């Protein structure tokens, strides 16, 4: 299964080092391959090294590409995480 989705970051703290660490911990629990695309850069959603350089402010948009049996769950989890206020 493959899911592609645009997600707007709603959390007031955006996505930087600390939330990135929380997100990576969640993503590692899933089977799917997860990629996040931001400003023409595609990163592995399970890599803290790659995620921690993302500095995404509230209101900006990311694209996620997820491939795997639990892709729907992953998409929902990412959306929930990035939307939390």
């Amino acid at each position: 299964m493959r899911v592609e989705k645009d997600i707007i970051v709603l959390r007031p703290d955006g996505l930087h080092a600390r939330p990135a660490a929380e997100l990576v911990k969640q993503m590692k629990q899933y089977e799917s391959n997860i990629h996040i695309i931001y400003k023409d850069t595609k990163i592995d959603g399970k890599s803290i090294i790659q995620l921690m350089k993302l500095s995404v402010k509230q209101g900006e948009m990311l694209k996620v590409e997820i491939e795997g049996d639990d892709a729907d769950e992953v998409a929902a989890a990412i959306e929930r995480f990035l939307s939390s206020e």
Partner: protein
Amino acid sequence: MSRYVGLVLISHSYDLAYGLKMIASQVEPDVPIAIAGGTEDNDIGTSVIKIKEAIESVYSDKGVILFFDLGSALMNAELAIDMLGNPQNVKIADAPLVEGVYAAAVESGCGADLEEALKVAEQTRLLEKKI
């Protein structure tokens, strides 16, 4: 046995090591992290004794990764490991201090083993900070 790989942060400055521990512990409060900052008098420098005690305080079968700030700390880190009888599961990371510790803390907190956490920490050498 601890569930997590332990980390030792070695810096020539106590304050630097302490500050970095605060950052890493905020993200991963459960990962054992010890600091060895400054000389025994807390002057600028490093201390074999401090490093040795820091390793012992976070040691488990899961292993320990040492991080250091500047090259001259490496010799004392090696000496401290030597004093402990060269345990195979105590490794020194060749990595930037802040990024390496941060990445290792997250990996350790996710349950990574010693080799995995060390690998990810050392990959931060290649990290471009800006997209």
